[in-house]
């Protein structure tokens, strides 16, 4: 069955959203990844994850983005309640630019008394919005 309409409307037909808005606003890829094991816990539009070192990994997208100007949103979880005083951060890798087909990521631990150190996290999540190739 195929619905052929240009937009989704509410029952009263007082508001609608075009299919293009839905398509373009949908996350094109997502990933849940444990760098400590390491293991890909769940994913969509992800071919593989490359573990490149402590606190460093690269998500390889299956259906490529049109350029590197897409928008990843990420969270990270250390999995421990005993790391008081530390803040854990997930960022795009500053030494390696994102590419249309892959995104290098770094996860770091920061505290008041230590400098930033790369750190493996048990749960890293990414959702990516952007234009596909």
């Amino acid at each position: 069955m195929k619905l052929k309409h240009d937009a989704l409307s509410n029952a009263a037909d007082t508001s609608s959203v075009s299919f293009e808005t839905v398509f373009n606003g949908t996350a094109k890829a997502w990933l849940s990844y444990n760098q400590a094991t390491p293991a890909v816990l769940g994913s969509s539009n992800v071919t593989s994850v490359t573990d490149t070192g402590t606190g460093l990994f690269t998500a390889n997208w299956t259906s490529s983005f049109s350029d590197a100007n897409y928008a990843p949103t990420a969270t990270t979880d250390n999995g421990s309640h005993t790391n008081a005083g530390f803040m854990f951060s997930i960022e795009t890798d500053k030494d390696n630019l994102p590419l249309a087909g892959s995104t290098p990521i770094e996860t770091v631990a920061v505290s008041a008394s230590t400098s930033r150190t790369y750190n493996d996290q048990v749960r890293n999540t990414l959702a990516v919005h952007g234009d596909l190739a």
Partner: protein
Amino acid sequence: MIDILRYLKPDEKSAYADYVTRRMDHMQRGTHYWQRIAKARDAIKFKQFKGELPAITHAIPYTDPYDLEAPVRVCHPAAMCVHELMVGGIHPPADAHLTTKLLLINADGSGDVVEKHAALAYRQSHDVKSEHVIDYRRCHDEAMGPLTYAEAIEWILQKDVPIEVWGRQHNRPQFAIVPRSSIPSDRTNRNAWRLADLTDAPKLEIAA
């Protein structure tokens, strides 16, 4: 917004126009590569639920081709992708990814069109600031039949591991497909891992 056309030669401009048109046509028909992946998801998850698809038991450690002293890299295939490949009808051949055409724009404002397999080498000698896909037609147009598990892992190797690692002759191995169990679980000295440390286990045989 980058003016892509100003970097392209006449034949590249016509190919780019054809790609943009065909991409829109695939989107409207629901046959865009990403749409094929999205549509197959529920059926694959049902097969996973019924235990009809194998667990992913292999990883691909490899050496950074431009920094032999760097920690070994380990490519972990995503189960969903392996299973998409085993179901078939979704993904193009790996060389469709490798021949994707990219416009690479350098810090000095110059730009060149290179195929994806050559992009890493190009980046070694240029200060690339941005890249733009200008031809992805094969990935939209072609979908392979089902692969075996070993073939699916090899497809991922070819797509995600640099061709400099697996496509050239080396004096010593630069990669291996090994059981995940041979990857150390203790990551204390992760950055000291070298390929030889991870390749003692039996290798996955790839069908000819």
